[in-house]
């Protein structure tokens, strides 16, 4: 077990009043859910993509409220900055006009909606029955050393391999395969 990963609990930040009030949470959660609703109902795919950007930014705000500033930064840079630009480019490459005039939902949409409602009932029952299992007192992660702790887990500390170094290398291999696959599939003639 890497000590850097668990030392965060020991360094409780004291003395600072919490900036994250419940109102921030409700505003961010409401923005995330409402714009997620826009994502799946809009006729024009560009509008869906813009609504998805609002959802991603709201989720990044929720990460900040959970004392995870590095993940929030990665969310904004990689998701809202990288992946969504890719989506918007592809929407412009395939023609939007024709598909926005067509039927938007497939023929078996009542079955899909029923399955999603069953999934929601499952989630609600799990959360209602298991709500006693969650501890009331939250452990404050140290926000100031968050990025350093993540770096130590990813790249190792003092010459030793970190707990996630091997997974990090595998992830770089995955990205290489994705780059090659995207180029080979998209090019007309190799």
């Amino acid at each position, binding site marked *: 077990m890497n000590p850097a990963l*668990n030392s*965060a*609990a020991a360094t409780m930040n004291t003395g600072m009043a919490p900036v994250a009030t*419940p109102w921030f*949470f409700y505003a961010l*959660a409401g923005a995330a*859910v409402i714009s*997620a609703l826009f*994502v*799946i109902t809009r006729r024009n*795919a560009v509008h*869906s*993509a813009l609504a*998805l950007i609002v*959802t*991603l930014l709201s*989720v990044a705000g*929720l990460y900040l409220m*959970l004392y*995870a500033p*590095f*993940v929030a930064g*990665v969310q904004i840079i990689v*998701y809202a900055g990288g*992946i969504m630009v*890719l*989506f918007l480019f592809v*929407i412009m*490459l*395939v023609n939007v006009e024709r*598909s926005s005039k067509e*039927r*938007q*939902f*497939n023929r078996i949409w009542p079955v*899909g*909606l029923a*399955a*999603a409602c069953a*999934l*929601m009932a499952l989630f609600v029952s799990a*959360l209602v029955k298991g709500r006693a299992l*969650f*501890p*009331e007192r*939250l*452990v404050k992660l140290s926000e100031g050393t968050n990025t350093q702790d*993540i770096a130590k*887990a*990813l790249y190792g500390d003092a010459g030793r391999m970190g*707990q*996630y170094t091997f*997974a990090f290398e595998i*992830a770089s291999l*995955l*990205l290489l395969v*994705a780059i090659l*696959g*995207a180029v080979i*599939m998209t090019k007309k003639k190799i």
Partner: protein
Amino acid sequence: MADITTLHYLVVAAALFVLGVIGVLTRRNVVIVLMSIELILNAVNLNLVAFSHMWGNLHGQMFTIFIIVDAAAEAAAGLGILIAFFRNRETINVDEIDLLKW
């Protein structure tokens, strides 16, 4: 007003997950289906970061970073397949993608 607990975050994540599942199961446009998959991945990420905060260690945040890497790879590969398919069939509707059916 009561403090925000882990359960609040789990409710938001469950709502995002269900909306993503509805999008995947009912929409015809492949681009919007891929965006709904991104919604599902975000719901899982929110759960993991909330649990990371609950237990006071960083494992959940590490998992979240790897899921974001995975989402980037998935978006690149999925949109590559989409462009290759659009070049051949001039459609991006999921119910018309049936070359492998018989």
